[in-house]
Every structure is written in C-alpha cells, then in structure tokens.
C-alpha cells in the first residue's frame, strides 16, 4: 500500500491487484470463521467505509464535516424505502439490493452537495457547527419519521437472496468485503485524479487553487458529494447487515466520534481507514472480553484523540514515517542544483514583437480610505520581460491581485490580447491566459511534483513537456512528494507549473526569494529564455535588483501605489527620483 503513493503513474494496476487479493482473503475468512463471529468484522467494514468518506471531505479537502453518519442514515433510509416498497423487484430480482444501494449513494450525494453549499462561503468552525446543526436536526426528524422497515414492521430483503440466518451472515460478509474494496479502489483512483489534486489544493489554499484555473466551488462540492456518496453506501451496507435500522445508530454524537477517530488515524489513507474501523469495533469488544464497562472505549478514544490532536499528527503519518526510517528511506529534503553554465548564460535579454499583450489602464484600488493603487497604467509587450520594482508597501502585490481577479472592485480596465478581464473570476482569468505565482507558499505539500504540475497545467502540457520544463529549472522529478521539497524549490516548481500551463502572460511575484545568490543568477539566466523558448510573456516583481537588471526588457517603478517611472533599464535606474524613493530622501530634507 505504501508504494502506491509514490509510483502511481507506473503501477496503475496496483490498487486493483490489492483489491483482488483482499476479496480472496475475505472469502477465505468467511469460509474459515464461524458465521456467528462474522457480525463484528462486517461492522468493521461498514465503519471503515464511513471513515473513508470522512477522509475525503475532511482529511483531504480540509473541510470539517460533522454529519457523516447522517449521510449513512440517508443511505440506509433510501435502501429501506425501495426495499419495503419492492420497487423494480421483478426487473432486477436478486440484484435489487445492489441497485437500491447505488441509488442510495447517488441520492445521498445529491444531499451532500446541498449540505456543501454553505461551505462555499463559510469555513472552519462555522462550517463544522453548521454540519453539526444539520446532523442534529436530521436526528430529530429521524426520531419522528423513523425508518421504513421499522414503520412497516418488516425486515429488508438481503442482497442476492441471502437469508437472515447465519449462512446469510457469511454471504453478507463477503458482500461487505466486495463493496469495501470497490469503494476503496474508487477513492484511491479519485485521489490520484484531477479531483483529488483539487481537493488537496483547496485544503491548502483557495487562492492558489483558483489561480491554478480550478473552480474552488467545484472542488468543494465534489468533495462533499463523494463523501456523502460513500456515506450513503455505508448506510446501505449497514442495512444489509441488520435489515432494520433505527435512528440511534446514527446520532450526532456518534458523528462527532467518527470525526475524532478519523482525525486520530488519518483516514484519508485507505489502510488507515481500515485500521480506524478495526479500532472502532475491536476496542469495545476487547473491553467486553475483560468485563470492563463499554464506556471505557470512548474514554480511550477520547484520550487518543486529545493526544493525536495535540501533537498535530495522526497514526497514519506516524506509522508511515516509522516504516520509512526502518527501510532507510530517511526524510531528507531533496536538494536542487540550479547551476548556471556558459551556454545558458549566453542568451540575451528578450526583445518583444511590439504588440501589446497585457494592457492596464488607470487601475485604481482603494481599501476604505487607503489608496493602495492610483491610476496605474502599464503595457506589457508580447515576448518581453517587464521588471516591476519599488519599495515594500508600494502596491506591487496589490497590483497582481487586481489583475488576477482577487479585487473585483478595482477601477480602471485590464485587457489581455484585446479581451477584457475585469469582471471575471480568478479561475477564469487563469484559464484565459493570465497566470500568476505567489509570494507566500501556495503549493500544497500533500501532492507530488507531477500531480501538482498536471493540476496547474490542466492538460496543456504533455508528460514529456512537463519533464522537460522541470529539468530546465533543475526541479526534482515528477514522482517526488512536495513535502520533501524545500520552500525555495517549491517556488521554482510553481513557476515551472505555471509555464507548463502555456499562458499568454505570467506574473511572477518574487519567485527567487528562497534561493541563494548563485541560484538567483542561474534562475535569471533561465528566465531570459522563457519568452522565446515557451512563448510566455513575463511580468516580474523582484527585490533583487541584480536579477531584475539581468532579465528585464523594460522596468516600471511603483511607489506608494503610483507609477514613478517606466521605460528602459538605463533610463529608469539612473533616474534620481527612483534612487530617492528607495533610499528615503525627500525634498523636505
């Protein structure tokens, strides 16, 4: 299971293989173990599936949802309703239950999307409490309406005509194994897909996600939908086991407990979700064996939870780190060698085609009474590198925020190749050809280099092109986890990814900040080639004036939100006003 994490591209069949083996093992267990001992193992699997769902919305996408068992209740309810009313029974025969479960999953997913809507505007604890409030309201409703089977006084017909007796319990266990394996495989593949990358990205930085061209709303709602789907499946499976559900199995308090368990084990990892399921069932069982009151199990969970949360780690991470150390794979950050060579250094500062690509007219940004930008007019010529400099607080980052759609209330106009960008959302602007990097670290450490590159470039670059860009900037290869890469190199990867997206214009906000002086020089050498080699026009914000001088076709100076000077390097850098702005002299002295 460990290797699946790193070698996703090459061993794509690994999850399927492991799943197949798991099913075989499950069948062996079902044959060997007496039927009356199979109840708990089945419950373990049901709990594991619920934890996997939480692992998606909370563990991966970073949104605390405290209603996971409510989703299970919905799933169970839908399955029971279809079963009690014997819908399409004659069409599907013994497969009816499976059909009902699928419908339950889809129905619960739809509800999950509705529950996720507040997440588009509300975050953190506000969102958590809302999901808890929904769970509580739903619990009260369930207490009143109850479940269809209970109301009808019936028991749900088990799948495939399995009987309610112990013989049926063996079949149910195998059924549970198959369902768990299918869910686990599905989630594993989803985690590696674009959806999974968008979840990890949105958990780390919403701004970074939008600037990568991905809709934050879509990422959040799909996370909720998948976790609800999985929750609904768990509920349906639970119903196949007990055949008659009631509200007490799905209380808000138990949803809270599930959340703590998920946080303790780190259930976004499939094997950890399984471990969580085992803990959930086995610990109370062991206590029962020793005639200890059952409540001690929750005490244990409580203490474990407090311990895990105070150390900020979880069992999954601890175990994986421990195993890595034992195998000798120490967590040494990979070193990067951005070195220069004469060949690379020989390229000249790019000259433009003369056509204006990014046209900024009269850009004004005000935060209340504070004028961050006043009447900024700037034209970026195709094929050039424009250096934007100015003292701290001059408004450079505000300018980039305004250009890329994060300050929709700005005055003035911004046009890219004739297309106005003013009212567009940040992810649309990114997809429309204007990309940016960030001064702060917005590269999610939970992805691999390759997954991040693919996520940002959105299919614009072939795998060979991605490898080539990474090599050009001396970045680690695609299989490297970003958590092992230092901050300075992560910024380079951000630059590489943005270039791989093939934008028309790329805004770089202090990309070399984490690099040593020699690496600054090497970076500059490579940056000079970007317009001609990749067809990307660059606007560069930098404090290192050596770097700016080595790459810029033209320079613009910003001071207190206004353009102080703009033009060729020679004219701007010898301008006494510019020197004064940097050194703090004023006419009053």
């Amino acid at each position, binding site marked *: 299971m460990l290797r699946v994490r790193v070698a996703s591209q090459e061993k794509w069949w690994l999850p399927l293989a492991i799943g197949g083996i798991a099913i075989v093992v499950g069948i062996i267990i079902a044959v060997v173990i007496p039927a009356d001992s199979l109840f708990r193992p089945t419950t373990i699997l049901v709990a594991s599936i619920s934890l996997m769902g939480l692992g998606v919305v909370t563990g991966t996408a970073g949104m605390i949802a405290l209603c996971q068992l409510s989703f299970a209740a919905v799933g169970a309810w839908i399955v029971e309703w279809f079963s009690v009313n014997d819908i399409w029974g004659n069409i599907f025969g013994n497969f009816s239950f499976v059909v009902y479960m699928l419908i339950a999953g889809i129905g619960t997913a739809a509800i999950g999307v509705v529950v996720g809507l507040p997440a588009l505007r509300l975050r953190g604890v*506000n969102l958590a409490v809302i999901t808890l*409030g929904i769970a509580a309201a739903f619990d*009260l409703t369930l207490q009143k309406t109850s479940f269809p089977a209970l109301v009808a006084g019936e028991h749900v017909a088990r799948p495939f005509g399995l009987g309610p007796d112990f013989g049926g319990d063996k079949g149910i266990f195998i059924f549970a194994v198959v369902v768990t394996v299918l869910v686990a495989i599905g989630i594993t593949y989803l985690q590696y897909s674009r959806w999974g990358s968008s979840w990890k990205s949105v958990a780390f930085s919403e701004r970074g996600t939008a600037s990568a061209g991905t809709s934050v709303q879509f990422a959040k709602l799909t996370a909720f939908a998948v976790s609800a789907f999985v929750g609904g499946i768990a509920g349906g499976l639970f119903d196949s086991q007990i055949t008659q559900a009631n509200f007490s199995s799905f209380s808000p308090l138990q949803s809270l407990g599930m959340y703590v368990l998920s946080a303790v084990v780190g259930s976004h990892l499939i094997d950890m979700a399984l471990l969580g399921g085992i803990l959930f069932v086995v610990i109370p069982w062991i206590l029962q064996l020793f005639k200890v009151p059952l409540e*001690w199990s929750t005490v244990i969970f409580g203490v474990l*939870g407090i311990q895990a949360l105070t150390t900020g780690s979880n069992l999954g991470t601890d175990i994986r780190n421990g195993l890595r150390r034992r195998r000798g794979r120490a967590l040494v950050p990979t070193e990067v060698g951005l070195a220069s060579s004469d060949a690379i250094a020989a390229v000249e500062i790019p000259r433009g085609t003369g056509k204006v690509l990014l046209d900024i007219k009269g850009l004004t940004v005000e935060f209340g009474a504070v004028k961050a930008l006043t009447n900024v007019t700037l034209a970026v010529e195709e094929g050039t590198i424009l250096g934007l400099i100015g003292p701290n607080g001059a408004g450079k980052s505000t300018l980039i925020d305004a250009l890329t759609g994060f300050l929709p209330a700005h005055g003035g106009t911004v046009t890219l190749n004739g297309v106005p960008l003013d009212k567009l959302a940040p992810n649309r602007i990114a997809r429309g050809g204007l990309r940016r990097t960030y001064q702060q670290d917005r590269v999610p450490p939970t992805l691999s280099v390759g997954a991040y590159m693919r996520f940002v470039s959105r299919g614009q670059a072939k795998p060979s092109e991605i490898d080539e860009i990474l090599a050009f900037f001396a970045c680690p290869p695609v299989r490297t986890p970003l958590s092992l890469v230092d901050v300075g190199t992560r910024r380079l990867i951000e630059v590489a990814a943005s270039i791989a997206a093939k934008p028309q214009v790329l805004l770089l906000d202090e990309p070399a900040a984490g690099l040593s002086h020699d690496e600054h020089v090497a970076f500059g050498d490579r940056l000079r080639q970007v317009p001609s080699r990749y067809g990307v026009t660059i606007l560069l914000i930098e404090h290192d004036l050596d770097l700016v001088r080595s790459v810029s076709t033209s320079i613009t100076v910003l001071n207190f939100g206004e353009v102080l000077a703009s033009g060729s390097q020679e004219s701007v850098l010898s301008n006494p006003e510019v020197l004064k702005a940097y050194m703090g002299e004023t006419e009053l002295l």
Partner: protein
Amino acid sequence: MWLNNVVAGLTPGATYAIVGVLLTLMSQLTRVVNFAQVAVGMFGGYISLTLVTKMHLPIFVGVTVGVLVAAILSALLGWIIATWLSEASTSARSAVTVAALLFLISLAFILFGYRNQPFPTIVAGPLFKLPGGAVVSKVTVVVIVLAIVITVGSWAFLKFTAFGVKLRAVSDRQMAAELLGLNVKMLNVSVWFVTGAIAGITVALVGPSASNDYVTLSSVVIPGAAAALVGAFRRMDLALIGGLAIGAIQGLFAGFPNLLIIRDWVPIIFIILFLLWNQRKEVWDVAR
C-alpha cells in the same frame, strides 16, 4: 394556548442563549469552539447530585462543589490546549474539546451509573401568569435573567476592567500580547475556569426541569452552538437573541404536531441563510 408553548420554550431557549454566549466568549477570547462546554457542567451537576443524595450534604454545599468541579475540569482542558496547542488553528483546538466531550460522557457513565436520577431542585414553581393564561415559571425567569446578566456582565467586564482589556488584547493579537509580557496562558485558563463555572451554575438551575441523561444534557451544546452561530461566534447580543428565538420557535411549533418536522429544521436553516447573507461581501478576503 400557543403563548403557553412559546413561554415554555423560553427556558430551554435561555439555556441555549447562555451556552451560545459562553461559546461566543470562548471563541473570541481563547480561539476555541468548546464542544465540551455543557459537558463540564453536566459532570459537575452529577458530582453535586452524588454529594446530596449519597452523602446527604446540604444542597447548597453540593451545588457549590459541583460548580467548582465544572470550573476546574474546564480549566484543566483549557490548560492542556494552551500548553500544547497555543499556536494551533481554531479547528485543531476545537477538535480536542470534541474528544473531551466524549471522554466526559463516558466517564459519567462509568462513575455515576446508568440510571437517571432527578437533580436536586434549586428553583421551582410558577412565578406569575401572563394575560391570556400563559404561566411563567420561576426557572424561566431566573435563567433568562442569568442569560442577560452573563451577556451584559461579560461585555461590561471586558470593556471596563483592566483584566478585560488584557483579555481583549490577547483576543486581538496573541503574539503582540506575549511580546508585551502578558501571561497569555493564565489569561486563557481563567476564561476557561469562569465559563466552566457558569456552565455548572446553569446546569444546576435547569437540570431538574430538563432531561438529565448525560448525553442529552451534554448535547445542549449543539443548539447552543447554533445560537452562537447567529452572531457568527463574534457577537454575544445576537447569540442571546438567537438562543431565545430558537427556544421560542421550538416551543411555538410544539403546538402544531403536524409541523413538528419543520420545527426541527427552522432554526438551522434560518441560521445558515442569516450567516450567508451576513458574509455575502467577503469572498476572497478571508480565504487563504
């Protein structure tokens, strides 16, 4: 008739309001949503119950000890969080209180057994009749007054005392406060202590009339959180109004048996819509 129901709903409503105000205070001052807020009070309540019924101590002594226990338990939890999670996010800190909530409920089962016993009554009986026949009980008035006193008292304490200024400073900028030499840990723990004590007092007052199994009692934190949500965990006045409104609405709908399902959903849906409307202007500002 319906007025009677609404009035009956004001007792739980005032309880939600108190819990909501406490949660708001804690959220503002100690960056935590304290899911164990009522559970500590529950635990203290059962300690006093044990002292009064098993050891035959006078009610006053039993309740005082119970309130102290609630305060100390709360302070202990706060100390753990302030020591090991002092720079962690609100979510991480709040998650620890969830674990503590489960811990306290289970410990209550273990220590106090499974059978429910009635709490010793401190305040009971009707106080006066409204025109129209609705009866207002003493407990209702006492709890509403307590809710108002806590809200106004906290506001006044924070605004007018030197200690309150320090608390507000820590709430604004913890690092800057530390650099000025303020004892952030002690300030945090004292807030936990006081809110724990208030929770203990509230449970002692409403315990007799409310359901008193460990789970139901501790779960009052959920509608309390809904009340705090009305003020976005920032405004105590809205939490107070929100709590009373939730109680009143629930009471009102109790008179319409066929609308009971809607009654369960009205508060949370209203709160969600209110919050979304309140935050409609902030799109990217608060996003990382």
